[in-house]
């Protein structure tokens, strides 16, 4: 393992132009909806207009008669599968529920739940066709929030569901899919030792990842049983395996070509369209394309949980947190699988705590099934914990950063879930925030507005998982790097830069390729902040493998021993035998006579994942008459391990912050009394525009990850964790009111002049 502190990088840490950049600024890059094939049919999905209902009958005859309609699908076209959890790489899937979510079986469980699909010669005809499908429903009572769904007498969504994780097995029908507890120490004693105790209750609304590109899939089924699928996905192998599982066909019969992807943030790991496209292509013999509308994306893909959270924390006069108790119920949507577990494991991780109890409940409700959204579960929980910590600090007379430092986690501190941290950078982010220009500058004065400054921290553990890479030496001495990680945020560039570093090439001399499921070894999805860490690790190892082969080839040419050959900065030289040397370019030209092509390869599941922390500072202004909140200034300090391409690391931080700002101020799922979603477009699902954000200052704190040869930590997720709490804390300091709801201030609870 290279000693990262001493390493002087030539490419890593620079800011080359990303390799796929020209295609993306000229409109040439092909995203899933851009794919076209001869004879293409267009699919549309018919969706439930009810939040909860039994399906009594589906009559597709009128749709089939419409000229231009070539196929119609219902759940009858899907195989029957056992219910039960199947591990699939990093995911745990229930094929029965997956199938039900793709096309409803005997009931619909949320407004927008797919019921049938059609394929037609153009999308307008497909739209007309789905309006001709007659479905008879028996409407059932619905339930929309976790608290209500947990009560006696709540409508039951899944009659066979039983709570897992309880001390005793229960046979009661329930909406609580699972519960989990992390506890240690003596809570009662801890609260007794506190000089101040703060207790607060929070409600956070369901929000969506908000990627600008809707879901898409194109499938071409061949008579030999092989299907090619183009899709904008975060993981081609993950998409393939899910398709295979839910259709009960071999994974090797499906080739998934990952198109460029227009944002995912966790929402494009699960599949919604691919099996429908495949089945309709099989029925028609033609390629079938399905693209969701924005309304479908919001209603029927995978937002993240709304939640109900109770926090009780105590601290003593010395500023030490003596006890923390958190109770969280997360909306899973129509099927189990909210990120409440991750919420429990991340919520108090920045702090060294002896006495804690964290309870989490995964609760099904009549909303779309939730999916991962950037540090899933952590933002909700941080809203609760980080605002209560702010309140404790204030009541005890501590600066909010100092208070966190007193309790700050470091190497050796035990996480809420138990394991001890290795080398981490939390305290460093506190220092960086405290010493920032922003924090040192006085609060600005704004005419007619109240101004306040807030601080909050956040944590995410990041992921490892499986990655494969090959590094091919080209005949001109450059290299290709082939991986299976779809590029959402610039990871092609970081992979190329890592290979370039090892090979002694310039970044522009390495050509990164994102390959399909037939062209690269298995690679888990792009997500969990894992690509630069894990795929980058595989690239590093593959490049080292290539270097070893190059040394052997040179040794062959020089009739020397491989141990006598060194490779440094793109030059291979012999330490004996006349001390000859060659550039990589020269060697590449001679490879045919030196043993053949050089292809470095690596497949791995790296351990040594480095978690990351962030501390954010925000200034807000509040119009006391209208309750409008605007962000004046924002600074995000984050431990980034080793920034391979600093511009894209900064970009990840700025993007996560802006999503957190939207989550805090304006984004929410608005359902009416019938359980139907009303804000199904970008007009009323309000994400920040250019006018809603200032420049976002980023401070990259590099505390190298000891578990990685280059010190890399995943950086993409933690930036979304602190913003809502930081903003809530800033609003408090501006107006003197502690807001405990997301989004805030909700227009219905505005103080109406009582600030």
């Amino acid at each position, binding site marked *: 393992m290279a000693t990262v502190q001493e390493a002087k990088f030539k490419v890593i840490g620079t*800011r080359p*132009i*990303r390799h*796929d*950049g*020209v295609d*993306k*600024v*000229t*409109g*040439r*890059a*092909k*995203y899933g*909806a*851009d794919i*076209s094939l001869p004879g293409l049919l267009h699919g549309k999905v018919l969706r439930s207009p009810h939040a909860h209902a039994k399906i009594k009958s589906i009559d597709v005859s009128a749709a089939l008669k419409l000229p231009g309609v070539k196929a119609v699908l219902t759940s009858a076209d899907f195989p029957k599968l056992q219910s039960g959890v199947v591990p699939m790489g990093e995911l745990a899937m229930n094929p029965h529920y997956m199938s039900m979510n793709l096309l409803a079986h005997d009931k619909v469980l949320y407004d927008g739940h797919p019921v049938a699909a059609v394929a037609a010669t153009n999308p*307008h005809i497909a739209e007309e066709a789905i309006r001709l499908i007659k479905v008879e429903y028996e409407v059932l009572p619905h339930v929309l929030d976790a608290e209500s769904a947990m009560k006696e007498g709540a409508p039951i969504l899944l009659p066979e569901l039983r709570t897992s994780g309880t001390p005793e097995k229960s046979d009661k029908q329930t909406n609580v899919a699972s519960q989990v507890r992390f506890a240690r120490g003596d809570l009662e004693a801890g609260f007794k030792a506190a000089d101040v105790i703060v207790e607060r209750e929070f409600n956070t609304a369901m929000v969506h*990842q*908000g*990627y*600008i*590109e*809707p879901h898409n899939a194109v499938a071409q089924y061949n008579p030999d049983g092989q299907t090619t699928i183009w899709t904008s996905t975060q993981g081609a192998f993950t998409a393939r395996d899910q398709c295979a599982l839910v259709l009960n066909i071999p994974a090797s019969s499906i080739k998934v070509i990952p198109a*460029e*992807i*227009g*944002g*995912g*943030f966790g929402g494009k790991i699960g599949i919604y369209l691919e099996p429908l496209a495949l089945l309709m292509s099989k029925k028609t013999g033609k390629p079938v394309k399905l*693209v969701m*509308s*924005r309304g479908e994306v919001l209603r029927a893909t995978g937002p993240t949980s709304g939640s109900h959270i109770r926090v009780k924390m105590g601290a003593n006069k010395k500023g030490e947190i003596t006890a923390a108790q958190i109770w969280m119920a997360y909306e899973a949507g129509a099927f189990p699988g909210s990120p409440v577990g991750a919420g429990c494991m991340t919520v108090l991780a920045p702090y060294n705590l002896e006495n804690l109890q964290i309870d989490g409940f995964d609760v099904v409700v009549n909303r779309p099934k939730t999916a991962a959204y950037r540090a899933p579960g952590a933002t909700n929980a941080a809203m609760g914990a980080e605002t209560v910590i702010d309140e404790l600090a204030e009541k005890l007379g501590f600066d909010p950063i100092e208070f966190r430092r007193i309790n700050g986690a470091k190497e050796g501190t035990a996480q809420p879930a138990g394991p001890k941290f290795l080398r981490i950078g939390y305290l460093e982010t506190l220092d960086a925030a405290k010493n920032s220009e922003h924090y040192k500058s006085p609060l600005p004065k704004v005419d007619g507005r109240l101004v306040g400054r807030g601080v909050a921290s956040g944590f995410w553990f990041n992921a490892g998982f499986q990655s494969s890479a090959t590094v091919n030496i080209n005949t001109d001495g450059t290299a290709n790097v082939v991986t299976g990680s779809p590029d*959402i*945020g*610039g990871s092609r560039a970081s992979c190329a830069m890592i290979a370039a570093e090892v090979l002694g090439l310039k970044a522009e001399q390495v050509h990164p390729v994102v390959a399909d499921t037939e062209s690269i070894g298995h690679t888990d999805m792009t997500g969990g902040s894992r690509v630069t860490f894990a795929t980058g690790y595989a690239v590093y190892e593959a490049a080292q493998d290539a270097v070893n082969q190059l040394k052997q080839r040179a040794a062959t040419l020089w009739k020397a021993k491989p141990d006598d050959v060194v490779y440094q900065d793109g030059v291979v030289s012999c330490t004996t035998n006349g001390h000859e040397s060659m550039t990589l370019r020269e060697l590449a030209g001679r490879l045919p006579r030196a043993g053949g092509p050089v292809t470095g390869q690596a497949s791995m599941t790296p351990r040594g994942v480095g978690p990351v922390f962030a501390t954010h500072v925000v200034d807000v202004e509040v119009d006391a008459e209208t309750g409008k909140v605007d962000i004046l200034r924002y600074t995000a300090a984050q431990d980034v391990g080793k920034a391979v*391409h600093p*511009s*894209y690391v*900064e*970009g*990840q931080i*700025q*993007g996560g*912050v*802006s*999503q957190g700002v939207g989550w805090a101020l304006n984004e929410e799922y608005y359902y009416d009394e019938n359980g139907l979603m009303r804000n199904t*477009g*970008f*007009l009323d699902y309000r*994400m*920040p*525009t*250019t*006018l809603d*954000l200032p*420049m*976002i200052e980023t401070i990259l704190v590099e505390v190298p990850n000891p578990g990685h040869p280059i010190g890399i930590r995943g950086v993409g997720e933690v930036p979304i964790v602190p913003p809502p709490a930081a903003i809530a804390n800033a609003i408090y300091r501006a107006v003197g009111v502690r807001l405990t709801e997301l989004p805030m201030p909700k227009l219905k609870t505005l103080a109406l002049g009582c600030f």
Partner: protein
Amino acid sequence: MSGKVHVEATLNGEQVEFLCEPRQSALEVLRDVLGFTGAKEGCLTGDCGACSMVMDGRVVCSCLVLGPEMQGHTIETVEGIAKDGEKLHPLQQKFLEHAALQCGICTPGFLVAAKALLDKNPKPTEHEVRFGLAGNLCRCTGYDKIVRAVMDAAAVMQGR
């Protein structure tokens, strides 16, 4: 009743003619009829700007223009921003240098809108840039690097 309409227009400096159903939007015409997939569909309600095109010098949402409305008009898309095969427009170059794109789906819309902005207002303030681009949503970048890239491109185009 739903017969196709014959339309002639100028697209990125070239004469084009095509047939389209009246209900096909300019976005569908660009992407599905003419094969220019640079403009993207993000919302179909004019709220995200991913479909932006310039029509007679003004940036509009192509999803809210009907195909037949293109008759006789001058249309510019992202594919026409770089004037030759070798050199990028300063906006495109600055977007790359500033890392003003991550997933890139909003980038064509931003480039089209930013070019129209700079063509009308060559020395915009930061606020004017943000105002002019408020109809373009980006979910990846938080807009910081996009605004910097546009301001930097403006400076280059002014010879500053």
